[in-house]
C-alpha cells in the first residue's frame, strides 16, 4: 500500500507527462464520441472525479474514512443553488462562497474528532451526512424540501452562459485535471510526506515532530473543498438540486470509487470513478437482460459484493494492481518469460503458505 517515500524531480516529470497525456486524450475524446449520452456521462465522471481525488487524499494519505463526503458535495451544490436562485448572486462568486463555507464546516467537524485517536471521523462524517440530508429535506423555505430546488443558472464565462454540454465537458475536465495536478503536488510536498508518515505510523511521525491533528485537519478541509467545488459544478450542470443526490448511498458510492481506483493512489481517482460509473450504468443495462423481474435488487447485491471483493483481494485498487501486473509480467515478457513464470509460481505458493 505504501508508495515509495523518496520522490522528486523524476516523479514530478512523470506526473506532468501523465496529466498532459490525460488532457490530450480527454480533449480529443468528443471528436469521436460525441453522443449526448456519452458526453453527459463523461461530465458526471469528471465531476465525481474531483470528489474522489479529495477522498483519496483523505483516505489514502490521511488514513481516515469519510462516510459523509456526499454531504460536502451537497453543501457545495445547495450553496451554489441557493445563492444564485434565492439571492441572485453570480455563479462564480457563489461557488467560492459555498466552498469557503463548506471548508469551514469541515474544519469545525474536524477539530473535536482529530483530538481523538481511532476512526471516529467515519462516525462523525456519517452523522454529519445524515443531518445534512435531513436539513435539506426539512428546511423547505431555502432548500425546497424533498422536491428540490429548480432553476439554477448555467455557469458563465466572459458573460456567456455555457449552454452546450460540450463546453461544459471541457470546463469540468479542465477543473478535474487542475484538481488532479494540485493533489499530485500536495502528495509530493512536505505536507504529503508528513501525511504518509502519519498513515504509516502515528507514533513515529509524532516523535519526529509532525503535528498529527493539524495535518489531518488540513487534509479533511482540502477534501471538503474539492467536494464542494464539484458540488457547485454539479448544481450548475443539472440546473436542479434535490436531497437524494447527496444521501448516504452517494457517500458510499464515492468511497467505492476511491477504493476501486486505489486509496493511496491519486492517479487511481479518475479511473476508479469511471469504472464505478460505467459499471453502474452497465449493470442497469445488463441485469434486465438476465432476469425478467427485479433488476434493482441484483444491481445492489452485485455492488455490495464488488466492494467487498475489491477490498479483500485488491486493497490497493485497480490502477496499482494493474500497473504491478504490467511491470512484472508484460515488460519482461520474452527471454525471461519462463523464469518469470517459475518465479511467479514460487511467489504464489510462498504467499499462500504465509497466509494460511
Amino acid at each position, binding site marked *: 500500500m505504501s508508495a515509495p517515500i523518496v520522490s522528486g524531480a523524476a516523479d514530478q516529470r512523470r506526473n506532468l507527462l501523465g496529466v498532459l497525456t490525460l488532457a490530450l486524450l480527454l480533449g480529443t475524446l468528443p471528436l469521436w464520441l460525441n453522443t449526448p449520452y456519452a458526453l453527459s456521462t463523461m461530465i458526471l465522471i469528471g465531476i465525481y472525479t474531483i470528489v474522489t481525488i479529495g477522498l483519496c487524499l483523505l483516505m489514502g494519505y490521511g488514513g481516515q474514512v469519510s462516510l459523509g463526503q456526499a454531504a460536502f458535495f451537497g453543501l457545495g451544490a445547495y450553496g451554489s443553488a441557493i445563492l444564485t436562485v434565492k439571492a441572485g448572486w453570480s455563479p462564480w462568486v457563489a461557488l467560492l462562497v459555498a466552498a469557503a463555507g463548506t471548508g469551514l464546516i469541515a474544519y469545525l467537524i474536524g477539530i*473535536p474528532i482529530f483530538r481523538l485517536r481511532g*476512526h471516529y471521523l467515519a462516525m462523525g462524517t456519517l452523522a454529519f451526512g445524515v443531518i445534512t440530508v435531513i436539513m435539506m429535506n426539512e428546511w423547505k423555505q431555502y432548500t425546497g424540501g424533498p422536491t428540490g430546488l429548480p432553476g439554477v443558472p448555467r455557469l458563465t464565462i466572459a458573460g456567456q452562459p455555457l449552454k452546450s454540454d460540450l463546453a461544459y465537458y471541457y470546463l469540468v475536465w479542465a477543473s478535474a485535471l487542475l484538481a488532479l495536478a494540485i493533489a499530485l503536488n500536495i502528495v509530493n510536498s512536505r505536507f504529503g510526506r508528513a501525511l504518509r508518515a502519519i498513515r504509516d505510523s502515528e507514533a513515529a511521525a509524532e516523535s519526529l515532530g509532525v503535528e498529527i491533528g493539524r495535518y489531518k485537519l488540513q487534509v479533511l478541509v482540502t477534501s471538503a473543498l474539492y467536494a464542494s467545488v464539484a458540488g457547485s459544478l454539479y448544481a450548475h450542470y443539472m440546473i436542479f438540486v434535490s436531497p437524494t443526490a447527496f444521501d448516504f448511498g452517494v457517500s458510499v458510492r464515492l468511497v467505492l470509487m476511491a477504493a476501486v481506483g486505489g*486509496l493511496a493512489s491519486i492517479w487511481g481517482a479518475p479511473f476508479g470513478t469511471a469504472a464505478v460509473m460505467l459499471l453502474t450504468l452497465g449493470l442497469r443495462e445488463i441485469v434486465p437482460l438476465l432476469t425478467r423481474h427485479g433488476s434493482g435488487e*441484483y444491481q445492489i447485491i452485485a455492488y455490495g*459484493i464488488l466492494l467487498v471483493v475489491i*477490498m*479483500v483481494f485488491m486493497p490497493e485498487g485497480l490502477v496499482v494492481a494493474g500497473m504491478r501486473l504490467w511491470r512484472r509480467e508484460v515488460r519482461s515478457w520474452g527471454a525471461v518469460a519462463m523464469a518469470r513464470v517459475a518465479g511467479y509460481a514460487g511467489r504464489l505458493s510462498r504467499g499462500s503458505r504465509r497466509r494460511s
Partner: protein
Amino acid sequence: MPQYGLRDYLQFLVSGASTGCIYVLIGLGLITIYNVTGVVNLAQGEFVMLGAMLAVTYYQGLHLPLIVAFLAAVLSVMLIGALVQRLTIHPARRAPEVTLIIITIGTAIALRGLGLLAWGTTPRSLPEFSPGVPLNLWGAVLSRQRLWIMGTALAVLVFLYLFFEHTLLGKAVRACAINRQVSQLVGINTEFMALLAYALSAGMGAAAGIVIAPLTLVSYDMGLVLGLKGFVVAIMGGLVSAPAAVIGGLLLGIFESLAAGILPSGFKDALAFLVLFAVLLGRTMRISELFRRRT
C-alpha cells in the same frame, strides 16, 4: 409547542426507555465485535433487519408458533453472522482499519440487496407477543409488547453477564478483547472467538429486530437508521464499555421520545446524530477520564 403535563412526560419516559432497549441491544452487538476483532461493523443494522424479516417469514410463511419463529430467526441470523465473518472479515483480517470499515459497508449493501430481493419493498409486521390491554402506569400507557422489549433486553444482558463472567468460553472471548496475541500464546483459538463474537452480535441484533416488529412496520431498509443509532450508543461507551452503552441507549431513547413530542417530526432522526456529535465533543474533553481519576 403543545402543553404537556407530568403524565405526558412519564409517557415519553416509558416509551423512550423501551425504544432505548432496542438501541442497547444493537450497540452491545457492535461493542462485542469491536472488542474481539477490532472491526467497526457497519453491517450491524442489517442483522436487525434480517432477524425481523426472517421471523415474519417463519411465522406467516411457515406458520410456526411465534416463539419458535423467534428462536429460529435468531439462530438463522447467528449463522448468517458467522458466515459473514468467514467470508468477508476473515480473509482481510490483517488489513488496515479503513479497509475493514469499507468491507463492512459492502456487506451491509449486499445484505440489504438480498433483503430487497427476498421480501420486496412491502413493509411487514408481527402480531404482539401477548395481546391484551395495555398496562396503566400512573396514567402513562405501556403496551405489553414494550414489556417484552425490556424483558428481552434484560434477558440478553443477564445472559451476556453470565457468559462473559462465569463460563470458560466467555472468559476466552474476553481475553481476546484484552490482547489477541497473548491470548493466542496461551492457547486460545482467536479465530474461533472472532467467529463467536460475530454470531453473538448477529443474534443480539436479530432479537432487537424481532421484538420491535409488532410495534413498527419492518422492511428491507430498516437496518441503516437502526444500525446508526446502535453506533451512537456504542460510541457513548467508547466502543468498549457495555455499562456506558446501556445507560447511553436508554438516554438516547428517552431523548428521542421527548424530542418527537416537542420538535417537528422530521428532525427526530437528526437528534441521534446531534447526540453523537455531543458525545464526540465530550470524549475530547475527557469527561470520562475526569471521573476515573477521582475514583
